[in-house]
């Protein structure tokens, strides 16, 4: 699986969570910030985590990863950070 594919998968999940509220002009790339750019609410991030977890299964322990991050770090996450984590987990698995 290429990094680009992971990014596109994640972008699809983000669009699903935000439904019709996603800004059409916003092109999601690795620098896109969940909080500043996407303005994702915390409950929407929970929904995103669920989609990621159910898509990648047990060897991508997204919830476990989140549990090790401080609140500020979660708020500061970019799309690329999540891609990094998924890529690392898939390689290790």
């Amino acid at each position, binding site marked *: 699986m290429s990094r680009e594919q992971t990014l596109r998968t994640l972008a699809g999940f983000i669009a699903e969570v935000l439904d019709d*509220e996603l800004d059409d002009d916003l092109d999601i790339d690795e620098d896109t910030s969940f*909080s*500043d750019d996407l*303005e994702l*609410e*915390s*409950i929407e*991030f*929970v*929904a995103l985590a*669920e989609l990621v977890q159910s898509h990648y299964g047990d060897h991508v322990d997204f*919830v*476990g990863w*989140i*549990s090790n991050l401080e*609140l*500020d770090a*979660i*708020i500061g996450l970019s799309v690329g950070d999540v891609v990094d984590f998924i890529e690392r987990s898939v390689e290790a698995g």
Partner: protein
Amino acid sequence: MAEIEVGGVKLHVQRLGDSPREVVFLHGLVMDNLSSWYFTAATRVATSRGVLLYDLRGHGRSKRPETGYRLEDLVAELLGVLDAEGVERAHLVGNSFGGLLAVAFALAHPERVASLFLVDALLPTAGWGERMVGTLGLTGDARDATIGRLFENWLGRHSERKRNKLAKQASALVEGTTLLADLRGSASFAPDALEALTMPIRAIYGAESDVLPDGRLLAEHAADVSLTVLDGCSHSVMWEATEAVVSGITGWLAR
């Protein structure tokens, strides 16, 4: 999104960690949802225990019926959630109104409760509905101030979209449902009734919180209460002392 239907209402649930699910987190009223527990204690607890979170009706990603917000309705909803998820006995962890719900549930269904962990919980004593409306600042200017405080506490930075969405959701719940009338018309208990609470209870309150007298009342009447009062903290103790609350919960469940 994981949903279950309880009492005709679709509720958003999150199941974390392995079965059996035995730790159930309860969030606060109106400007809160399961994400506040998810991003603080729940994922941490889920590394060693099965965890269940749900959005109360009208909150987060659960449906918002027009009626059914009395305390007894929400106790029945919690019972329905435990039944639907096969949770026989739960450790209930509640913040603010979530703590009040946990206490009311423990009074109604003590056999389903292994322990209570309460964070600045109001108690369901006489007049609690009115006090709750006041403490939370659910209407008018007080509501705007509460939203502002939430941004400082949790969302971290300002965002028009989030602010508007939160305000819209809050007003839909406060103005579009029977919530406020239901809170004021809910059942209450005499302080002596708290003596029926025999399960272990851990309670954390802010020293500056206007709800602290409820914590002291609980410690006075329930059988087995360990009360901690944190200096310099208000009703928002969960955000002001997040690490103390989270490590308190993990320690409580590991004992």
